[in-house]
């Protein structure tokens, strides 16, 4: 099972988890990213490249399934406007064994940060600014090459 969804709708993690659990492995790992509430951000806007985004995520999920012999992989990314505490991204994996599920989950979120065309714009007290790429994200993605 490969599931990729890019949507303005809030992410339903319970439903995503259940779908992963139903995919047939005994081990399910997930990562959820939330809009941080602690650094003064009032609104987060996520822009993306429709079509190219989905293709990039499908490719990433397929790579994880192949490399870790997953029975399930899900990548769900929110786009549009959101507020602190809301879920930006959910990735989940299901495999027969825990190490495969956990490693593949780390892989998906690390590579998603550098390989998929999303851009974050933060608004703090009326001032909007585009988030700058982080060297640490590239280092994290590189370790899977």
């Amino acid at each position, binding site marked *: 099972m490969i599931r990729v969804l890019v949507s303005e709708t809030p992410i339903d993690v319970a439903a995503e988890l259940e779908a992963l659990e139903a995919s047939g492995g005994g081990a399910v790992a997930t990562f959820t*990213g939330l809009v941080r509430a602690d650094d003064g951000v009032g609104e987060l806007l996520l*822009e993306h490249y429709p079509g190219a985004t989905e293709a990039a995520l499908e490719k990433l999920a397929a790579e994880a399934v192949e490399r870790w012999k997953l029975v399930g992989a899900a990548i769900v990314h929110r786009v549009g406007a959101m507020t602190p505490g809301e879920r930006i991204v959910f990735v989940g994996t299901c495999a027969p064994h825990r190490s495969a599920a956990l490693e593949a989950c780390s892989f998906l979120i690390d590579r998603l940060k550098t390989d998929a*065309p999303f851009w974050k714009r933060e608004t703090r007290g009326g001032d909007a600014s585009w988030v700058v790429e982080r060297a640490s994200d590239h280092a994290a993605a590189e370790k899977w090459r």
Partner: protein
Amino acid sequence: MIEVLYFAWVREGVGKAQERVDPPAEVKTVSDLIDWLRHEVLADKAKLRAAIDQRFVPLDAPITGAREVAIFPPVTGG
């Protein structure tokens, strides 16, 4: 004819999300296209990334046969 797409602060700086252009034959690469477009926000190419027909490419990639070229900042999702 090439459809050029812009995203994030590149889109804001250009002032539009896309435009249809017909560059002359000497415009061979994404980098050439960026120069030819003459948008001020595209001046510092070190800050730009690109895709041709929805595939990420380096700026020196040839645009021969491209239908869609996207120009954008480094990605920051997840």
